[in-house]
């Protein structure tokens, strides 16, 4: 039997990533010093960046000309309701399909250094957009987690596509939850989280990582290994701790990279509290393309 969480993502054993993004009314708050940029804008932008990075990680399939199908994605936004942002029914969609189906493109300007002429040059690039920002209503987190659980169960039990291995033999699905607050609504998020983490493949249990995203830019608490490190922050922070999977041993090294090289203790949870915008991007990247290697 292979070591837990050692399976790399490949076209034969693709991974499933489910991203839950808080789209409640509070996400409309702007970031201090950035009057016209809201938390919802940041979160959507970070998501688009990570989707693009996942696509770029997949090398060309010589037979189709599209990136290889090494990963599937489902993205849900939750406010007063839980909405699938990719497919109508929330079914996962592969990154090859995502690669040539953006919602739209956006042209961005950036400064690049021209080493030949020793000067900065303003260039523009066209970047694809899949997710639009949104903020509305309550925070139905428990419902969102339950949707994720249902998607995971259906995907793991579905027959694989041609030339894919049995899904229960691949790297377990990963759920990334991004929130700016706490659950407000029906159900119990902790119970829903435990149901997710109880699902498994032969390589390990499903991983649920949580990122609490704030406008305060306070010192983030990254990958705590004891609830006492976060319990004083907010009544909800201890709950989020127990809702987060312990980081598997052989993935801890990668986790240290996003933690600016600081060591990540054994048993540390896949959780960031009071994340700023930069940490949010690093968290998402780590949770998707950075978690395990991609074989192509």
């Amino acid at each position: 039997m292979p070591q837990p969480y050692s399976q790399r993502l490949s076209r034969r054993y693709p991974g499933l990533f489910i991203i839950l993004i808080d789209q409640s009314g509070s996400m409309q708050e702007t970031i201090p010093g950035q009057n016209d940029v809201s938390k919802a804008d940041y979160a959507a932008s970070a998501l688009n960046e990570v989707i693009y990075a996942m696509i770029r990680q997949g090398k060309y399939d010589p037979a189709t000309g599209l990136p290889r199908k090494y990963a599937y994605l489902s993205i849900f936004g939750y406010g007063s309701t839980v909405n699938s942002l990719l497919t109508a029914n929330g079914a996962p969609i592969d990154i090859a399909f995502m690669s040539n189906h953006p919602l739209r493109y956006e042209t961005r300007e950036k400064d690049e250094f021209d080493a030949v002429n020793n000067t900065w040059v303003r260039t523009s690039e066209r970047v694809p957009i899949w997710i639009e920002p949104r903020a509305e209503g309550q925070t139905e987190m428990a419902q969102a987690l339950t949707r994720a659980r249902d998607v995971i169960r259906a995907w793991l039990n579905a027959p694989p596509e041609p030339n894919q291995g049995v899904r229960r033999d691949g790297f377990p699905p990963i759920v990334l939850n991004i929130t700016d607050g706490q659950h407000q609504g029906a159900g119990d998020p902790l119970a829903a989280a435990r149901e997710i983490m109880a699902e498994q493949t032969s390589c390990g249990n499903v991983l649920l990582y949580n990122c609490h995203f704030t406008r305060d830019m306070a010192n983030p608490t990254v990958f705590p290994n004891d609830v006492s490190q976060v319990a004083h922050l907010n009544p909800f922070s201890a709950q989020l701790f127990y809702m987060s999977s312990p980081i598997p041993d052989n993935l801890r090294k990668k986790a240290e990279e996003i933690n600016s090289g600081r060591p990540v203790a054994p048993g540390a949870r896949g959780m960031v509290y009071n994340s700023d915008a930069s940490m949010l991007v690093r968290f998402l990247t780590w949770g998707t393309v950075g978690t395990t290697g991609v074989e192509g």
Partner: protein
Amino acid sequence: MTSPPIARATTTPALWWVGLGLALVSVVLGLVALVTGPVGLLLILALVLAAVMVLVWVWRLLTPVAAPAAVPAAPVPAAVSARPVLRQQGPVPVPPSGAAPPSTHVVGRAPAPLIPGPAPAPAASPDPRWLERDPFYSALEAPDAAVRAFIAPKHEADSMVECEDSYALDSAARRYAVADGVSGSELPRPWARLLARTFVQHPNYFTDAAAFAAQLPRLGEQWRAWVTEIWFPTLNGGRAPGDGDAEFQRRVKAGAQATLLGCALVEAAQRPRQYTAQVVAVGDADFFQFRRAGTAWQQVATYPIADPHDFGRFPHTLLTNPDYAEKAVEWRRIGDFPVEAGDLLVLATDSLAKWLLDQVREGGNQWQQVLACQSADAFTALIAAARKGTDGHTALEDDDVTLLLITVPPFSAGKGSRR
């Protein structure tokens, strides 16, 4: 929010009442005209008009407006925000100059998903079998009495197009090469084949350092030409990538990577009419020399990796990206091995090479069977068994495998025998 739809009385009785009202008004007006004359009539008309307006106003107030239940709501964009948020230079976004209005977020309606229905199948590509006819994917030289060649994709069910290894051989010139395309690079198979084929045609491009540094960028150029002029237009209905396809250009520049192991039998400098195996390696494909010891084979030499623990995840590779040509000269390993007629030379890509080393060390018996293998079917069966790792021996890793088995021929002063 919106009120629930409320049923309103149908219009037919209302029309009745209007008709009746008008008839009554006509009768009253006729009587008034008879009594008061034209000025009084005008005064009365103005009063009646005012009274009707007041009645209409009161009627509207008392009647709720029904929601248009039968007409579906028009789609509303999920949100409006077309401004750049995160920039390349750093993770913290900088709002563009010329303060844009604060972003607005639609409240109340569910956002439309990216794809309204289930994900449809991607647009049909050309039959992938066209690749099997492409010279970079097919046209591998046929083995012969002196050389046996086997190649297999990572999984038995995969088509050979999925295999990222390649090889080349020229029995008459006694030159052989295997190359292992790196999965994490773009379109590595044609690059692997190009490198192996070029070694067989021009071994001096690889053995001579100056020639190597000069030729490698040209080979990279050939790979790029194939990708942009053959592969991409074939998949895209003849459309050539324009400057706009920035992502395509980025991928082409990042390019392919492959390891290479070449072996040429040349006349030994100090041993007239004997061969030396001149081996060139970049990366972790491995060369083995075996000699008969009774009925079994005995390992004489292994190069460049002799310890199975030295196989890493990131071996040195040859890149199509010309920026790495100088590094490649540094990474190149060259070794000469005196050989005798009847020796068995083995060129194997990394996973199989590691497995062979493990087997020899662990005293397994499967490696002798692999060296004796005579047919593709037998090879497939042996590989399947090796992947299971029977008898407590280390299993062969899931990977593409390529194996050349070369029986050193008696010396002949023919083509290619000189250095």
